[in-house]
């Protein structure tokens, strides 16, 4: 199996696995965060503004982890330096 095929296979598989595994953790964390926020809203409805704002900030921080995995996956698919390198080599030959 030559270099081009190997790099292609590795990039594709890794891109898929990155976003698959990378979404599990943040999804579970966000579910727990929203559940806790809802129960505390039920206990103290007049603190709704603070709770909602803190919930959104917390959700954004948790979401960032999934975004990092997504960015890595996109780089592997669309801006892959190794792929560009072997393609340039193959085109130069």
């Amino acid at each position, binding site marked *: 199996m030559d270099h081009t095929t190997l790099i292609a296979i590795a990039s594709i598989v890794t891109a898929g696995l990155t976003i698959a595994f990378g979404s599990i953790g943040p999804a579970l964390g966000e579910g727990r965060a929203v559940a806790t926020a809802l129960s505390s809203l039920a206990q103290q409805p007049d603190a709704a*503004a603070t709770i909602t*704002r803190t919930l959104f900030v917390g959700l954004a921080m948790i979401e960032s982890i999934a975004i990092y995995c997504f960015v890595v996956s996109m780089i592997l698919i*669309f801006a892959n330096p190794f792929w560009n390198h072997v393609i340039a080599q193959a085109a130069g030959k």
Partner: protein
Amino acid sequence: MRLSPDDIILWQHGFLKLNGTIAFTWGLMLLLAVGSKLITRKLSTALERSRWQSLLEILVTGIEGQIADVGLRQPRTYIGFLGTLFLFIAMANLCTVIPGYEPPTGSLSTTAALALCVLAAVPFYGIKEEGLHGYLRSYAEPTIIMLPFNIISELSRTLALAVRLFGNMMSGTMILAILLTITPFIFPIAMSALGLLTGMVQAYIFSILAAVYIAAATRDRAPARR
């Protein structure tokens, strides 16, 4: 498949490039500046005021309230910076309803620039409030062993700010582009509405996090200050 508006080259001369990001950013700046200039030409304090003036008042008092909630005393000192962050990012995303427009925040250059502004603003306001010595001493809290970790956390949260906004904006435009090649009308419209919502939330998150970082740098530390 275009990853960002950086790839739209409008004009090139040697290594100087006028790309889509720069053009859209300047268009947004023009829109915001000319729009608010036109609205604030005739301000009135009577009961009769134009709708646009009410809109601006809602925005300004809303942002001021949020900044005060975060714990910053005298929100007026910070509203110039934080309000501009929020309005720029929010407008950059709202204008996606215009066909042919791509949000400049979908390019890592713009979001990195905004995150670097926050990185520069935190010591600026910290030194303005606490003095140079007081601000530098805050890096050694709670113990001196935490000094490298505090520095690393400053840099990593700047990076996180940039990548979070970039990832959200880029994923929105990219999902839309991919869906348009697969399904016809309805699903891309739903995704585009979701993209607008996430854009607003991300604008709010960016400015609130900037406010929280500035509040952390400017809070009262020495009890003897009062």
